Protein backbone atom coordinates (compact mmCIF):
# COMPACT_ATOMS: atom_id res chain seq x y z
CA UNK A 1 0.00 0.00 0.00
CA UNK A 2 0.95 3.62 -0.40
CA UNK A 3 2.54 5.31 2.64
CA UNK A 4 0.98 8.54 3.83
CA UNK A 5 4.27 10.37 3.39
CA UNK A 6 4.11 9.84 -0.40
CA UNK A 7 0.88 11.79 -0.58
CA UNK A 8 2.29 14.50 1.65
CA UNK A 9 5.44 14.84 -0.46
CA UNK A 10 3.39 14.88 -3.64
CA UNK A 11 1.16 17.60 -2.20
CA UNK A 12 4.20 19.59 -1.09
CA UNK A 13 5.66 19.38 -4.61
CA UNK A 14 2.36 20.44 -6.18
CA UNK A 15 2.07 23.30 -3.71
CA UNK A 16 5.60 24.49 -4.48
CA UNK A 17 5.01 24.36 -8.23
CA UNK A 18 1.83 26.37 -7.77
CA UNK A 19 3.67 28.85 -5.59
CA UNK A 20 6.38 29.19 -8.21
CA UNK A 21 3.68 29.90 -10.79
CA UNK A 22 2.07 32.54 -8.60
CA UNK A 23 5.35 34.29 -7.92
CA UNK A 24 6.85 34.11 -11.38
CA UNK A 25 4.06 34.47 -13.94
CA UNK A 26 3.18 37.83 -15.42
CA UNK A 27 -0.27 36.96 -16.72
CA UNK A 28 -3.00 37.35 -14.12
CA UNK A 29 -4.91 34.28 -15.37
CA UNK A 30 -1.72 32.23 -15.03
CA UNK A 31 -1.39 33.44 -11.45
CA UNK A 32 -4.90 32.17 -10.77
CA UNK A 33 -3.90 28.82 -12.26
CA UNK A 34 -1.03 28.66 -9.80
CA UNK A 35 -3.43 29.37 -6.96
CA UNK A 36 -5.63 26.51 -8.18
CA UNK A 37 -2.68 24.14 -8.05
CA UNK A 38 -1.92 25.22 -4.49
CA UNK A 39 -5.53 24.68 -3.40
CA UNK A 40 -5.47 21.24 -5.00
CA UNK A 41 -2.36 20.35 -3.04
CA UNK A 42 -4.20 21.31 0.14
CA UNK A 43 -7.13 19.13 -0.89
CA UNK A 44 -4.88 16.12 -1.48
CA UNK A 45 -3.50 16.60 2.01
CA UNK A 46 -6.94 16.93 3.58
CA UNK A 47 -8.27 13.79 1.94
CA UNK A 48 -5.09 11.85 2.71
CA UNK A 49 -5.27 12.82 6.38
CA UNK A 50 -8.94 11.88 6.44
CA UNK A 51 -8.19 8.45 4.99
CA UNK A 52 -5.12 7.64 7.08
CA UNK A 53 -5.69 9.32 10.41
CA UNK A 54 -9.41 9.64 11.08
CA UNK A 55 -11.76 8.11 8.57
CA UNK A 56 -14.52 7.80 11.20
CA UNK A 57 -14.98 11.55 11.45
CA UNK A 58 -15.86 13.49 8.38
CA UNK A 59 -13.78 16.57 9.25
CA UNK A 60 -11.26 16.08 6.43
CA UNK A 61 -13.94 15.62 3.79
CA UNK A 62 -15.96 18.59 4.98
CA UNK A 63 -12.86 20.75 4.87
CA UNK A 64 -12.25 19.56 1.32
CA UNK A 65 -15.81 20.57 0.43
CA UNK A 66 -15.16 24.04 1.80
CA UNK A 67 -11.91 24.24 -0.18
CA UNK A 68 -13.85 23.42 -3.34
CA UNK A 69 -16.30 26.20 -2.61
CA UNK A 70 -13.49 28.63 -1.83
CA UNK A 71 -11.67 27.69 -5.05
CA UNK A 72 -14.79 28.26 -7.10
CA UNK A 73 -15.46 31.64 -5.46
CA UNK A 74 -11.85 32.68 -5.87
CA UNK A 75 -11.84 31.85 -9.57
CA UNK A 76 -15.17 33.58 -10.17
CA UNK A 77 -14.12 36.82 -8.51
CA UNK A 78 -10.51 36.64 -9.71
CA UNK A 79 -11.41 36.20 -13.35
CA UNK A 80 -14.08 38.90 -13.08
CA UNK A 81 -11.35 41.24 -11.83
CA UNK A 82 -9.08 40.19 -14.69
CA UNK A 83 -11.77 40.91 -17.27
CA UNK A 84 -12.69 44.21 -15.67
CA UNK A 85 -9.06 45.33 -15.61
CA UNK A 86 -8.55 44.17 -19.17
CA UNK A 87 -11.49 46.26 -20.32
CA UNK A 88 -10.10 49.41 -18.73
CA UNK A 89 -6.38 49.00 -19.23
CA UNK A 90 -6.17 46.57 -22.16
CA UNK A 91 -3.65 44.58 -20.17
CA UNK A 92 -3.70 41.78 -17.66
CA UNK A 93 -0.01 41.76 -16.87
CA UNK A 94 0.00 41.81 -13.11
CA UNK A 95 2.91 44.26 -12.93
CA UNK A 96 0.96 46.88 -14.86
CA UNK A 97 -1.88 46.86 -12.38
CA UNK A 98 -0.14 49.02 -9.82
CA UNK A 99 -2.58 51.83 -9.22
CA UNK A 100 -3.09 50.83 -5.62
CA UNK A 101 0.64 50.84 -4.95
CA UNK A 102 0.87 54.57 -4.52
Amino acid sequence: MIPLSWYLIFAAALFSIGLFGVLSRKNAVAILMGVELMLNAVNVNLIAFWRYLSFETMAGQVFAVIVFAVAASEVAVGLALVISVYRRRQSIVADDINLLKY
Partner: protein
Amino acid sequence: MLNDWLFVGLMLVMAPIFPIAALIIPRILAPKKPNPLKSQTYECGIETVGDTWIQFKAQYYNFALVFLVFDVEIVFLFPWAVAFNQLPLYGVIVGILFIEVLVIGLIYAWRKGILEWF
Protein backbone atom coordinates in the same frame (compact mmCIF):
# COMPACT_ATOMS: atom_id res chain seq x y z
CA MET B 1 -14.25 -0.02 -2.78
CA LEU B 2 -11.23 0.26 -5.06
CA ASN B 3 -12.40 -2.89 -6.85
CA ASP B 4 -15.37 -0.96 -8.19
CA TRP B 5 -13.06 1.58 -9.71
CA LEU B 6 -10.94 -1.09 -11.41
CA PHE B 7 -13.38 -1.33 -14.29
CA VAL B 8 -13.58 2.44 -14.65
CA GLY B 9 -9.80 2.73 -14.57
CA LEU B 10 -9.37 0.08 -17.24
CA MET B 11 -12.05 1.84 -19.28
CA LEU B 12 -10.11 5.07 -18.95
CA VAL B 13 -7.00 3.36 -20.31
CA MET B 14 -8.70 1.30 -23.02
CA ALA B 15 -11.51 3.51 -24.33
CA PRO B 16 -9.13 5.84 -26.20
CA ILE B 17 -7.50 2.86 -27.94
CA PHE B 18 -10.45 2.41 -30.28
CA PRO B 19 -10.53 5.98 -31.63
CA ILE B 20 -6.73 6.06 -31.79
CA ALA B 21 -6.79 2.91 -33.91
CA ALA B 22 -9.40 4.54 -36.11
CA LEU B 23 -7.03 7.46 -36.61
CA ILE B 24 -3.95 5.32 -37.30
CA ILE B 25 -5.50 3.19 -40.08
CA PRO B 26 -6.07 6.20 -42.40
CA ARG B 27 -2.40 7.13 -41.86
CA ILE B 28 -1.55 3.91 -43.71
CA LEU B 29 -4.42 3.70 -46.20
CA ALA B 30 -5.27 7.27 -47.05
CA PRO B 31 -3.40 9.43 -49.54
CA LYS B 32 -1.48 12.39 -48.17
CA LYS B 33 -0.80 15.19 -50.62
CA PRO B 34 -1.02 18.44 -48.71
CA ASN B 35 -0.55 21.75 -50.46
CA PRO B 36 -0.77 25.28 -49.07
CA LEU B 37 -4.09 26.01 -50.74
CA LYS B 38 -5.68 22.83 -49.48
CA SER B 39 -4.72 23.41 -45.89
CA GLN B 40 -6.12 26.93 -45.76
CA THR B 41 -8.73 27.36 -43.09
CA TYR B 42 -12.25 27.54 -44.41
CA GLU B 43 -14.03 30.86 -44.66
CA CYS B 44 -17.05 30.77 -46.96
CA GLY B 45 -14.88 30.03 -49.99
CA ILE B 46 -12.90 33.27 -49.85
CA GLU B 47 -9.44 33.68 -48.43
CA THR B 48 -9.19 33.90 -44.68
CA VAL B 49 -9.29 37.47 -43.45
CA GLY B 50 -7.68 38.60 -40.25
CA ASP B 51 -6.83 36.72 -37.15
CA THR B 52 -8.69 33.75 -35.72
CA TRP B 53 -8.58 35.26 -32.27
CA ILE B 54 -11.57 37.47 -32.71
CA GLN B 55 -12.96 39.20 -29.65
CA PHE B 56 -15.81 37.32 -28.05
CA LYS B 57 -18.87 38.63 -26.35
CA ALA B 58 -18.54 38.91 -22.60
CA GLN B 59 -21.88 37.17 -22.19
CA TYR B 60 -20.24 33.80 -22.66
CA TYR B 61 -18.25 34.51 -19.54
CA ASN B 62 -21.32 35.58 -17.57
CA PHE B 63 -23.12 32.34 -18.25
CA ALA B 64 -20.06 30.32 -17.34
CA LEU B 65 -19.88 32.30 -14.10
CA VAL B 66 -23.45 31.56 -13.06
CA PHE B 67 -22.96 27.95 -14.11
CA LEU B 68 -19.81 27.55 -12.00
CA VAL B 69 -21.53 28.68 -8.83
CA PHE B 70 -24.58 26.51 -9.43
CA ASP B 71 -22.45 23.51 -10.32
CA VAL B 72 -20.54 23.62 -7.03
CA GLU B 73 -23.76 23.82 -5.05
CA ILE B 74 -25.51 20.98 -6.85
CA VAL B 75 -22.55 18.61 -6.60
CA PHE B 76 -22.53 18.99 -2.82
CA LEU B 77 -26.25 18.27 -2.64
CA PHE B 78 -25.64 14.75 -3.93
CA PRO B 79 -24.26 13.34 -0.64
CA TRP B 80 -27.22 14.98 1.08
CA ALA B 81 -29.58 13.13 -1.28
CA VAL B 82 -27.82 9.82 -0.63
CA ALA B 83 -28.07 10.32 3.14
CA PHE B 84 -31.79 11.05 2.91
CA ASN B 85 -32.89 8.12 5.05
CA GLN B 86 -30.67 9.13 7.97
CA LEU B 87 -31.78 12.75 7.93
CA PRO B 88 -34.44 14.31 10.14
CA LEU B 89 -36.89 16.70 8.52
CA TYR B 90 -34.91 19.74 9.53
CA GLY B 91 -31.85 18.27 7.79
CA VAL B 92 -33.85 18.11 4.58
CA ILE B 93 -35.05 21.69 5.00
CA VAL B 94 -31.52 22.89 5.67
CA GLY B 95 -30.38 21.21 2.46
CA ILE B 96 -33.16 22.96 0.56
CA LEU B 97 -32.12 26.23 2.20
CA PHE B 98 -28.60 25.63 0.88
CA ILE B 99 -29.85 25.66 -2.69
CA GLU B 100 -32.41 28.42 -2.12
CA VAL B 101 -29.60 30.78 -1.10
CA LEU B 102 -28.37 30.36 -4.63
CA VAL B 103 -31.79 31.16 -6.00
CA ILE B 104 -31.24 34.63 -4.56
CA GLY B 105 -28.12 34.78 -6.71
CA LEU B 106 -30.08 33.66 -9.75
CA ILE B 107 -32.75 36.30 -9.12
CA TYR B 108 -30.05 38.91 -8.66
CA ALA B 109 -28.38 37.93 -11.95
CA TRP B 110 -31.76 37.96 -13.65
CA ARG B 111 -32.61 41.45 -12.32
CA LYS B 112 -29.18 42.75 -13.20
CA GLY B 113 -29.63 41.62 -16.79
CA ILE B 114 -26.78 39.12 -16.78
CA LEU B 115 -29.00 36.47 -18.28
CA GLU B 116 -29.96 38.62 -21.28
CA TRP B 117 -28.30 38.06 -24.61
CA PHE B 118 -27.81 41.08 -26.78
